[in-house]
């Protein structure tokens, strides 16, 4: 099935407006990454999110969960009612990734948790000699967290070649630019020095993302993989792009209308 980034962003805006929720920019930066993963790489036999033969995708940066919900709607794992009732009293979908939602593998939002869960799944899959792959998407701000690097050391030592970490390098964290808070310099060289195969791509170029992921798996390397995706926080709506206010700003009627207008005008 084909995923249309513009449609996914429209669903995100609908949810954010319906629920008066924050974290729109965090969701927009990972739309192309998620759409390529769900469209081309993640296997869910019979479209069953609980299939024992599924690949595992963990959104460790739980703040981007609206993008995942939007993809889950495309897969018919969520209904239109789920979207329009977002954040209504008694509804199920939370503002951060929660494993009680079918289709979401781990609870995140407290950052630096999901990657270790993914390392455990990849380790278990290797021990069981099963072929499913594990992908974990983390934020660049999130890799401030110590357990990420504990897991990176472990994954490299145990040659978890079935594990891929994807870093959404949008250059921001909650309170500002990553370079002004804890500078990360070259994320790719950090992962390489820890024993990962690593590549950097334009995180909004669907073809480049697909090619990079395919190449990683084709290489047959024993190393775990790190895909560094250079992205734009707020990508897709001109007045949100690279503006960190949309980490926390909520939509009102007028800004929702302008956002939809900008989205329709743009090419992503």
């Amino acid at each position, binding site marked *: 099935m084909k995923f249309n980034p513009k449609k996914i962003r429209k669903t995100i805006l609908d949810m954010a407006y319906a629920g008066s929720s924050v974290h729109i920019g965090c969701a927009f930066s990972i739309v192309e990454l998620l759409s390529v993963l769900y469209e081309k790489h993640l296997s869910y036999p019979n479209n069953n999110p609980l299939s024992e033969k599924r690949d595992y995708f963990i959104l460790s940066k739980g703040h981007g969960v609206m993008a995942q919900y939007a993809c889950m709607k495309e897969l018919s794992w969520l209904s239109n009612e789920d979207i329009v009732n977002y954040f209504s009293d008694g509804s199920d979908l939370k503002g951060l990734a929660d*494993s*009680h939602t079918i289709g979401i*593998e*781990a*609870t995140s939002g*407290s950052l*630096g*948790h*999901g*990657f*270790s*869960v*993914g*390392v*455990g*799944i*990849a*380790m*278990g*899959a290797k*021990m*069981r000699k099963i072929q499913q792959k594990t992908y974990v998407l983390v934020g660049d701000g999130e890799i401030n967290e*110590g*357990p990420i690097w*504990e*897991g990176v*050391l*472990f994954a490299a*030592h145990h040659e978890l070649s079935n594990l891929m970490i994807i870093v959404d390098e949008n250059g921001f964290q909650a309170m500002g630019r990553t370079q002004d808070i804890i500078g990360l310099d070259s994320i790719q060289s950090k992962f390489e020095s820890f024993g990962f195969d690593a590549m950097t791509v334009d995180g909004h170029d669907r073809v480049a993302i697909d090619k990079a992921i395919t190449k990683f798996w084709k290489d047959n390397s024993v190393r775990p993989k790190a895909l560094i995706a250079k992205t734009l926080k707020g990508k897709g709506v001109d007045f949100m792009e690279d503006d960190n206010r949309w980490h926390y700003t909520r939509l009102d009627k007028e800004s929702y209308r302008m956002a939809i207008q900008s989205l329709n005008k743009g090419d992503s």
Partner: protein
Amino acid sequence: MRKTLSNALVDLGKSDPNILLLTGDHGYALFDDFRRECPKQYINAGIAEQNMVGMAAGLARLGFRPIVYGLSAFIPIRVLEQIKIDIAHDRLPVIFIGDGAGFVYSHLGTSHQSIEDIACSRVIPNLSVYSPADRFELTQCLSSAYQDGSSIYLRIGKDGLGDVHHFPPKIKIGDLVKVNSASQSKYSFIATGSMVKTAIDISNNLPEAIDVWSAPFIKPIDNLMVEKILRDSEAVVTFEEHSKYGGLGSLVAEISAESLPRKILKVAANDRFSQRCGTYQYLLKEHKLDFSTIHKNVHNFLKGE
């Protein structure tokens, strides 16, 4: 208890290939037998406890049965959030063993001493807390934990204090076990872990008729059984090598406040870190948990009744 723990782990590992033993580079010779008997089921996760617990969640999701070992200062204290979010939130079948609880590492200071672990773990939803007193209770607790298949913290205190039971007691999850019985007793002691032995010794050195109970399960605990003990007693003394806040004494006081008010003396560590270094016995004395200080305090408490 260490030999018993080692044997129980080997038995579990051999009976179920899904059992995995994870350690954060702790345990020293404790795991020699397990490593020999079940080498593919042993993972030294390195000095990286947070990642270890997250990994245990991932492994449990694939059907493994992780047993995560560490010192109780680290498991559960250092990794409390991982236990909450990654494990207990989903009721994953992971057993956490926190060894050396209380003042076992008496020479090593605050970082290795642990009087907060019961309080911190028992407030986490879905997480059970077991606290065996001797090798018999340890075997029972581990077996119950495995069969229960939920998220469990198992606290192990000072080794080598001797048995409190003469033979394996028949217990089910939540039970309290009577370890010393007096005819026409007016008072009850409820103790857990390393302090059960002390509670028995104190009761044997007081003129009053006292029933002594061991509480190998802090959570869940059989509330009705605790209520019955309260009902049958004029006063109750609780014993634990743990802070007086949030542990067994608090638990008994909570049940008492909700059901049957009784005067309760909590024999527990005061709200302070250790000041000095010394033997285990020295540290107990510093925290007023040595035999003679407890004896005096309990004696005065019962006299006042």
